[in-house]
């Protein structure tokens, strides 16, 4: 039976999640140098175009058609058989296509997150092919394993409420792999690039926070108490993480920064994503406060130590924050919050932590390997990195024949 309230909320949530990709565009766009801002906005927007089409043609079928195999198969090609009646295995009170379009927005934003790792130095044509292959051979199978009927990680009991594993660890580890094989931006040692427009970063963060209510509370797939719980803990985790990042900076660097609060808020949103439907408010505060600690260490200590150029910290925030969130779900999950879930370690079920760890490791290994292969394939055929002269001049003028800002008039 289609429930009008549930359907309205899920459609609204799908729109909220779609907004997160332009939000991410501004979040990332503000961080790059101004000669590259359009290239980042362009990459995010073209993903909305390309993956919207990929999703209805094959992506949704590969991800969500029931099956125990590598992925779901092509029986739902072009949404054949995906209609306006509910599909009870996924959501019993909303039209099947409402579930499909809500999931489409997740498939769109996940590859967009990786942009942060290779910003300012990737050829646009190579980026397009890479993204399409990555969505099909990394996102779709993993999505099937975790969320699809018959998916094996789902069957062993891995809990990922709104996409900590499928979205954030997945994109984050792909980010690390591409950052390492692509190599550093030229002249990075002498020329540490300052974000060209921090107000854009703040705007992007605000819109991400807003959109994330659809991401997490929408994942209840109904307008019910579970959605409310997810909504509340999402807000509180973002708040706690934004605050704690600022405090860490204050202690370590002498001043708190707005860039730090934004980084922290996003890290908090990442961390609460897998947990949102399983944890209480107090747990969410702890998850939020601690995620900034681990992510701060990742971006301010580990990254300089190893010297990879994850330009905008897609790995440091999304993968590390995502792993913390997935494990925290195994620690703080409680059946008092969600009887359909499971208890975590702190509620007497140590096994859940182990299951969460398996899901994390599988994602890290599978995504690293396949991302590497896809990258090399694209590199052989068209070359992934732009030449040094192009990089110096900036991707806006060289890849798109546009510039973001004029100097005169």
């Amino acid at each position: 039976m289609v429930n009008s309230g549930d359907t309205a909320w899920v459609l609204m949530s799908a729109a909220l999640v779609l907004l997160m990709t332009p939000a991410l565009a501004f979040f990332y766009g503000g961080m790059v140098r101004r000669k590259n801002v359009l290239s980042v906005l362009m990459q995010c927007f073209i993903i909305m175009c390309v993956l919207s089409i990929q999703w209805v043609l094959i992506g949704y079928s590969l991800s969500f058609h029931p099956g125990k195999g590598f992925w779901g198969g092509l029986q739902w090609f072009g949404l054949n058989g995906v209609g306006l009646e509910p599909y009870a295995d996924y959501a019993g009170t909303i039209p099947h296509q409402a579930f499909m379009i809500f999931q489409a927005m997740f498939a769109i934003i996940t590859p967009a997150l990786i942009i942060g790792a290779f910003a300012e130095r990737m050829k646009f044509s190579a980026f397009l092919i890479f993204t399409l292959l990555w969505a099909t051979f990394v996102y779709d199978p993993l999505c099937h394993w975790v969320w699809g009927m018959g998916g094996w990680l789902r069957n062993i009991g891995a809990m990922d409420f709104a996409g900590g594993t499928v979205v954030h660890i997945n994109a984050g580890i792909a980010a690390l792999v591409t950052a390492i094989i692509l190599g550093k931006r030229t002249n990075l040692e002498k020329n540490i690039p300052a974000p060209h427009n921090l107000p854009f970063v703040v705007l992007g963060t605000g819109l991400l926070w807003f959109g994330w209510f659809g991401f997490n509370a929408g994942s209840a797939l109904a307008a019910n108490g579970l959605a409310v719980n997810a909504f509340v803990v999402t807000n509180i985790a973002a708040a706690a993480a934004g605050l704690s990042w600022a405090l860490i900076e204050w202690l370590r660097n002498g001043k708190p920064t707005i860039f730090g609060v934004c980084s922290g808020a996003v890290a908090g949103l990442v961390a609460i994503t897998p947990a949102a439907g399983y944890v209480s408010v107090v747990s969410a505060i702890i998850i939020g406060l601690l995620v900034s600690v681990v992510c701060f260490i990742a971006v301010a200590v580990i990254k300089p130590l190893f010297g990879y150029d994850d330009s905008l910290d897609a790995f440091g925030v999304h993968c590390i924050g995502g792993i913390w969130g997935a494990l925290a779900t195994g620690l703080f999950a409680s059946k008092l919050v969600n009887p359909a879930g499971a208890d975590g370690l702190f509620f007497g079920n140590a096994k859940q932590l182990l299951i969460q760890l398996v899901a994390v490791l599988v994602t890290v290994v599978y995504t690293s390997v396949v991302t590497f292969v896809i990258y090399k394939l694209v590199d052989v055929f068209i070359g992934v990195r732009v030449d040094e002269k192009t990089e110096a001049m900036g991707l806006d003028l060289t890849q798109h024949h546009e510039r973001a800002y004029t100097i005169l008039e």
Partner: protein
Amino acid sequence: MKLIIAIIQPHKLEEVKEELYKAQVNLITVSEVLGHGRQMGVTEIYRGAKETGNLLRKIRLEIAVNDSFVEPTIKAIVKGAKTQETGDGKIFVLDLKECVRIRTEERGGVAIG
């Protein structure tokens, strides 16, 4: 006293600054300018409307030095800015009549350093 004006590629600024510090030239003024020399501009296209030969972003340095510093300054700028491609820029050396440090009202060579 000379006034040295240099037009360089924006991405070479850090290297030029570094070379200037090595040559103990620490007082510089930097501004962003648009320029067109031998290097062709990049085509820009907005909704199909094509603009060619546009001006490119450049960095302009102004450095006032005493005579003994002229050659080291020029060498430093060349070392930092040279890529051997068109568009590396130019250095102009002008005679400088007077220099006044506002805080102390000192004049001439002592005011420059």
